[in-house]
């Protein structure tokens, strides 16, 4: 029991320490990128469950991120005022699902409440993930990779070609998301610290959920599927159902990341759905050690933070491409794994001994 919660507690302590660190070195702007990195990390830990524990690759998770972000963005910005006479709009309004906000020109606009938009976005994601996941997860290897890549490309092309999703410009001027009175996801400078904690609070919650899942019956079933799917099947594990549920769970993680980041940034563009984003998530999971949630999380923070701060310059995508190649060539099971550390330790101590003998 202790081993499960201790890392989460340690993680929360680190989150708080980092906030004070930015205060001490007087770089409050770092918190902005850290907040964004937090939401991307949500996608990454979800994907880590799917790739590392269920053993299924997905090259289309940016698609789920975009589905979440776009639906939430659309519902919270689409003005229902002209449709007020419409019966359906009337019902929605009576149910108290709508709020009045000021639009760009100071006029009133009638839009969905962010909570409603958020729940709707998650519901749609779950639905799409079940519909897509059912047939996709029956595939293996190349076919699975290509099918998920195809799904991601379809989402990308759809948001790029749809005018009410803003086509190539994406959606902007998305209102903040008031979670509770006084607690709002928005890009305002005054709410920077608050948002940092919202973002990393979400990640901590997600980690807690996934860590519990791994240590439960589900986790054992997943490990069985990963090492020998046919054997697991023969032992009575319903492999198809487990794979599908994890796929949907990881899609929801991606969608939630998308929803929150969209409200935080105040906008979303088609590049969030691009294949390169999906590949980037896979690269981070790989460098984090495939079946290592904490590795994936720490790499997610570090690499996303560096990338968002622009340290990679115009070589941003190249960095992730090269990471993928190097990891798969030299450490195909992932980089941050216990065995790697153990081998490194053995190697270092072995070398120390050899040198000692020489002397």
């Amino acid at each position: 029991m202790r081993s499960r919660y201790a890392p989460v507690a340690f993680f929360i302590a680190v989150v708080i320490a980092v906030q004070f660190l930015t205060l001490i070195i007087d770089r409050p702007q770092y918190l902005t990128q850290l907040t964004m990195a937090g939401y991307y990390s949500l996608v990454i830990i979800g994907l880590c469950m799917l790739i590392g524990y269920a053993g299924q690759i997905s090259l289309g998770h940016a698609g789920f991120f975009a589905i979440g972000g776009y639906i939430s963005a659309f519902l919270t910005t689409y003005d229902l005022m002209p449709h007020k006479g419409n019966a359906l709009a009337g019902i929605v309004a009576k149910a108290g699902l709508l709020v009045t906000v000021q639009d760009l020109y100071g006029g009133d606009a009638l839009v969905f409440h962010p909570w409603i938009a958020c729940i709707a976005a998650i519901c749609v994601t779950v639905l799409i993930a079940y519909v897509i996941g059912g047939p996709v997860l029956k595939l293996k290897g190349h076919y699975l990779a290509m099918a998920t890549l195809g799904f991601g490309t379809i989402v990308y092309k759809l948001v790029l070609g749809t005018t009410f999703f803003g086509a190539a410009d994406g959606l902007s001027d998305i209102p903040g998301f008031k979670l509770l009175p006084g607690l709002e996801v928005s890009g305002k400078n005054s709410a920077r610290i608050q948002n940092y904690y919202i973002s990393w609070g979400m990640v901590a919650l997600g980690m807690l959920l996934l860590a519990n899942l791994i240590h439960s019956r589900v986790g054992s079933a997943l490990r069985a599927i990963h090492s020998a799917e046919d054997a697991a099947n023969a032992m009575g594990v319903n492999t198809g159902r487990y794979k599908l549920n994890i796929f949907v769970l990881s899609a929801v993680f991606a969608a939630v990341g998308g929803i929150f980041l969209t409200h935080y940034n105040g906008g979303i563009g088609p590049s969030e759905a691009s294949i390169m984003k999906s590949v980037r998530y896979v690269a981070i999971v790989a460098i984090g050690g495939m079946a290592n949630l904490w590795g994936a999380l720490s790499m997610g923070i570090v690499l996303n933070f560096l990338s968002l701060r622009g340290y990679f310059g115009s070589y941003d995508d190249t960095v992730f491409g090269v990471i993928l190649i190097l990891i798969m060539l030299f450490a195909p099971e992932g980089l941050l794994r216990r065995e790697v550390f153990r081998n490194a330790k053995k190697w270092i101590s072995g070398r120390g001994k050899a040198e000692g003998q020489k002397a």
Partner: protein
Amino acid sequence: MNIELFFQYLAAGVTYGTIYAIVAIGFNIIYNTTGIINFAQGEFVMLGGMTAVTLHAFLPLPAAILSAVIITMIIGALIEITFIRWLTSPSVLRMIIITIGISIFIREAALHIWGEAVRALPYFTGTEVTVISAGDVHISPQVLWVIGISAVTVVLLTFFFNYTLLGRQMRACSSNRDAARLCGISAKNMVTLSFVLSAGIGALAGCVVSPITYVQYDSGTGLAIKGFTVAILGGLGNSTAAIAAGLILGILESFSVWVMPTAFKDVVSISILLLILFVRPSGIFGSVEASRLKEF
């Protein structure tokens, strides 16, 4: 829809379909010798087109195309030697991720070398307004070039695989690697050769199609997905069926513009890919029994 428009769509469909088929054959050649799907196949097409455009600045067109094809072949060989050759029995997932990494690397390198500009070779004969007319039907001579060169390529490949020693050695490796090695065929060299061949074919396709479709640093990805769709549609590894499947996809895609916005053209072909994967992963011409025995 009048008959004239019908033939315009048909001609466009056949042109694109031929290119998809050539990309699919590139996939098949590597798949047959290694069991790998090379996700960087589309990048060979892009590299061929881009290199030819650059070389055409100081070389005549045929020489530029020939040099571009040879340069891409060398790059294909280098990729295989650097990344694939020394791996011992890599898993499928590992190979997928490596080739994806390679494709990103090539694309980004192209971005830094050539920038984001859209380029094209000149039309091989005439200009973009030259048309060959037969009754009411008007087509560009470049369309004939694309179809002609692709047809010659396919014929040459068939000849190579059936009647030359090297081609037969490659086929031996694909049907039984261990037996081929016992006969003294170097399986590793055959794999390198398959990368060289498919890089060359891809580059040639990139050259002939560039006057019509233009070429840009990121045009490889789209082609790779279409090419893969065609390869699956025809049955992975079956190059003759790939030609038929390429024409089917090209024509379907071309006529989809008639009922849907052009922006969704790619959505149509990728939906076909998903549908085929879900319903009949052995392809429309492939045998279900044979595909069960393959390792994916």
